């Protein structure tokens, strides 16, 4: 049943990349438990506008858990307290009346803050551009059913391909590592026969780009898997390491 909450919000405010940020405290009242977390921020923002203050900037778009744009670090966890959901699918019934909620942006040197809770994740686009593809120009394809693919491999490739590129894995990791993100794409393509041809160069190029972007190393704590809203498995990291080392040993 719908209830209503009074909450204290501690939100990170930062004008732009160059200036330092700090927490500001806001009170919100009468928040319906049926609201999503972002709708609660909408309520706060419309009040701030009416009071003549600058609203809180945050990334969001589809609000149905698939575009990967929303990115709030809530009470010390990417996308908040529930497992397997993005911030837009987190609803206020997960909080208690009178609670204080702390909201921060993703924290990683490779994801600089643009404003308030908005960060720059273009490093992910560059990792994909380095090798996250199969080199097939439009029009070159054979008939789709000429290439049967083992169902288990196809299902595993799909599970890896479900990554939404939100960056929660980086935000969750104490080293700000992007291994889960990078490995998900390497795995998806390595599991498919179409992806085999470029497997070695792909793994090397994507890992090199990941390092160049300033993401940290993996120390196997598994926080990325635990916080991933799409349940991407850290088995992908093991597969990436195998791909990477076999590529390194066999490189000319």
């Amino acid at each position, binding site marked *: 049943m719908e209830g209503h909450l009074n909450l204290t919000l501690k939100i990170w405010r930062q004008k732009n990349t160059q200036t330092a940020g700090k927490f500001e405290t806001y009170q919100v009242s009468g928040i319906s438990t*049926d609201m999503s977390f972002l709708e609660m921020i*909408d309520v706060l923002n419309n009040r701030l*506008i009416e009071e003549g203050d600058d609203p809180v900037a945050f990334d969001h*778009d589809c609000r149905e858990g698939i*575009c*990967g744009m929303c990115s709030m670090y809530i009470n010390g966890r990417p996308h908040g307290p529930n497992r397997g959901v993005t911030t837009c699918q987190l609803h206020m019934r997960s909080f208690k009346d009178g609670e204080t909620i702390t909201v921060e942006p993703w924290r990683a040197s490779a994801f600089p803050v643009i404003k308030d809770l908005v960060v720059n994740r273009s490093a992910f686009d560059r990792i994909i551009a380095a090798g996250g593809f*199969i080199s097939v120009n439009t029009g070159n394809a054979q008939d789709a059913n000429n290439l049967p*693919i*083992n169902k288990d491999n196809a299902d595993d490739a799909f599970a890896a391909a479900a990554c939404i590129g939100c960056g929660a894995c980086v935000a969750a990791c104490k080293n700000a590592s992007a291994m889960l993100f990078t490995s998900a794409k390497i795995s998806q393509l390595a599991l*498919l026969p179409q992806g085999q041809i470029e497997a070695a160069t792909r793994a090397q190029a994507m890992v090199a780009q990941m390092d160049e972007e300033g993401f940290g190393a993996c120390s196997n704590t598994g926080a990325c898997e635990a916080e991933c809203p799409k349940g991407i498995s850290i088995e992908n990291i093991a597969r990436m390491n195998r791909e990477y080392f076999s590529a390194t040993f066999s490189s000319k």
Partner: protein
Amino acid sequence: MTKIDAKIPVGNLAEKWTKFKSSVPLVNPSNKRSLEIIVVGSGLAGASAAASLAELGYKVKVFCFQDSPRRAHSIAAQGGINAAKNYQNDGDSVYRLFYDTIKGGDYRAREANVHRLAEVSGSIIDQCVAQGVPFAREYGGLLSNRSFGGTQVQRTFYAAGQTGQQLLLGAYSALQRQVGMGNVELFTRHEMLDVVTIDGKARGIIARDSVSGALERHFGHAVLLCTGGYGNVFYLSTNAMGSNVTAAWKAHKKGAFFANPCYTQIHPTCIPVSGDHQSKLTLMSESLRNDGRIWVPKKENDTRKANEIPEDERDYYLERRYPAFGNLVPRDIASRAAKERCDAGFGVGSSKMAVYLDYAAAIIRYGKGEANKHNMHSPTDEEIQSMGKAVVKEKYGNLFDMYKQITGEDPYEVPMRIYPAVHYTMGGLWVDYNLMTTVPGLYALGEANFSDHGANRLGASALMQGLADGYFVIPYTIGAYLAAEIRTPSMSTDSEDFVNAEKAVRDRLETLMNIKGSKPVDYFHKRLGKIMWDECGMARSEKGLKASIKEIQALQKEFWSDVKIPGEIDNLNPELEKAGRVADFLELGELMCIDALDRNESCGGHFRTEFQTEDGEALRDDEKYAYVAAWEYEKQSIFKLHKEELKYENIKIAQRSYK
């Protein structure tokens, strides 16, 4: 009256595209390197077009307002993508896909475009598989299919309930490959705010860098708008928060005709509105109607819980009204029937604006089936329930989870509450066979154009059209224009036309910032949405539309005198971005009502209450309205109608019946 020429190639329907491809002028590789193309939008249409054109050698610039091309709202498409592969040996063919699409569109789409769409549909699947898109497969390793509404074959390819995501990531990968190779220059967090025309031709755009607020001028020999639909004119829809009409509307005001703006698809199965705070609506896939039964109580204003209402006091109104198709009638019909029941006072839930989608019967049916499979001769009710729920979970688990997260109710135990919501817009920029608008050099692809779905789109056809346009149509048709542009050098963006266009954009932004009124942008957007939903939504009437046009005009004035935009013009300012979009929606909404008022018939998603049969079904008027309504912008609130007659030479027009 400006003549609109659809440029449909002569010849037999089935040979038009083949002949066109063999005769369209070509651009040689060295000339391609000096021709620049601007692509606005990075969804299925934009990403596939940009990647394919860059592969051909053109210099491409891609713009998207999101932080990455991968966020475009194509990502949220759930169900699947149609293709006439006939892998199931069930009688599918190019002609059948063509026929189903024309009929599904209630005979208001252009034959030649739809046939071409059906012809290239198979190549899309081939291309996507080659890219590594992980479609669902059978144990033999071959691709799996399922069926969707409005068809009698299984031609839908899918990747669980995330088909749009997987197809978009495939196109995004192809795009990023070209970015990495330096063939595409990517501009994220950039919003197109005008088209620049020089001597009547599209020659570039003005874009705003959302982070710095800086305005930029970009030249292109051609400009492709792949900017999606305008469902957010209704405020609440299944579209993403940022989905908007601005690029298409700016093009319209620069001379591109807007076609069939009133054709809107209201999807029957969405999670209903829970309160005034709601910012968007969430779709529950059409596939749920395969097994779920839709009902309302027989008693008006029944306040009992669903599970307390006995079987003989439930009205399965779709099964009652449409025995032949039952719960699987097309989207427009299912939506209208739900509205009719709720308006009559039989709705459920706290708002009374919802109907039940019930899985109880399916759970028992599947449970008994499992018991038979496992040779259990006298299973207990509990065993049946548990086995039945397991089957439903395997088929629809992710949708049930999503429903539970949003509503806090468990759909395995109580029926889902659903209600129709705005989902897709069939209308869009008018384009000819080459996908060119009425402005030379300006193209519209995907949902942004009007061309393929008539008055109602069939499920799993939006993904097909977006990728057809981008991968397989525009790479050919753009040659017809660019072959004559090889002598046009890249133009300086310091010319008067560019400078003036930028100044007009800057003036408008400054005007918005300086209103300093009292109401946030959302206030106006919600009011517009309510007018549109009440009077230009599932049911429209002459009286209501006329009143709405006046109301919208008044709201436009109020917006331009009382909107309050915080922050600065030269910094990240989401409210300023929203304000510009809502200002454009306010003008589009007016045109939608004008278009709906002009069309004195009911067809597909356009239902005029004055034009219905005795049983409340849509009544078309093929004598008078078998045309595309292409609207030309003259000045504020003044639009001129141009008609493109629709000729059906290969299909016999008939009234749709689902009884």
